[in-house]
């Protein structure tokens, strides 16, 4: 594998799935860059900003915030969207995500075929379930998104704000929050999700 072999080679090179250590280091670089530019790393606050932009601050003081002061974060999130567009269309991996065989076998018992259930063949989303024609999937999407938005603001941050930023600052509240992430995640994955799938 050669690192520098012209444009085509470089694109192919970064289009491979990245090793977890490379992914982790790249996230740490994002943490560094944002702090270097004078801001902290966090994504979920943008949901609050959207509420504020929509005028929720008139009724609820929590949304009475300076939207302009948060413009850097809104711009950052638009970038994330564009990054997804670029990576999903131009830096596609040759194969679907290599999920462990035990997870694949287990999910098949719930009726989720991997990776065939991703209509795009990327192994990112079980689109058999999460599509607008599947009532159960639509309900799961609504409830899942709602819990993420509610929980993140109640916690004061999401994975980027607590698990990456907070833990990097050696914050006990962030560690407790991350433990909470796993309590909820394990409950959902091991008990609630299989129950819902078998309904």
């Amino acid at each position, binding site marked *: 594998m050669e690192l520098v072999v012209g444009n085509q080679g470089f694109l192919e090179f970064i289009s491979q799935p990245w090793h977890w250590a490379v992914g982790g280091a790249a996230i740490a670089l994002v943490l560094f860059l944002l702090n270097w530019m004078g801001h902290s790393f966090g994504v979920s606050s943008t949901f609050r900003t959207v509420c504020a932009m929509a005028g929720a601050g008139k009724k609820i003081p929590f949304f009475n915030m300076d939207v302009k002061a948060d413009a850097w974060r809104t711009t950052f999130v638009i970038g*994330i969207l564009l*990054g997804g567009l670029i990576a999903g269309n131009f830096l596609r991996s040759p194969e679907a995500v290599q999920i462990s065989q035990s997870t694949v076998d287990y999910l098949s018992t719930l009726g989720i075929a991997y990776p065939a259930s991703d209509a795009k063949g990327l192994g990112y989303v079980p689109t058999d379930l999460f599509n607008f024609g599947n009532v159960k999937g639509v309900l799961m999407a609504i409830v899942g998104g709602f819990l993420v938005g*509610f929980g993140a*603001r109640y916690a004061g941050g999401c994975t980027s704000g607590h698990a990456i930023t907070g833990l990097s600052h050696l914050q006990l509240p962030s560690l407790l929050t991350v433990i909470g992430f796993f309590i909820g995640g394990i409950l959902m994955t091991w008990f609630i999700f299989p129950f819902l799938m078998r309904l």
Partner: protein
Amino acid sequence: MKNIPFLIVGIFFGIVLTKSEVISWFRIHEMFRFESIHMYGVIGTAVALGVIIIGIMKRYRTLDFSPTPLSVRRHLISGSIFGLGWALAGSCPGPMYTLLGSGYWIFLLIILSAIAGTYTYGLLRDKLPH
């Protein structure tokens, strides 16, 4: 215009989340089933390097960081609520935006729901234990 650097870092972050497969619903399921090191490796590496980066940066400048006051009850409850959603939707906020960008339109609904969840938190804030 002064925010363009943030746009570029955001684009980079979206690519990172995609290529490190953090955006995969299946990776999140696998993580909560403890069947692969992948997600632990990504987050573990990011935090290990993050501790060093923040530790060094703190010596030279005041960082933008507002600590959350310690409340065991609040953190465990709120974290668990977030975790339930993270496992069900198979994505946290960063990947939600990334997947929408990748053309998974269902994430538009998921993001709108997350905004509704945030709004509901704001509405109930005074009644919740903090």
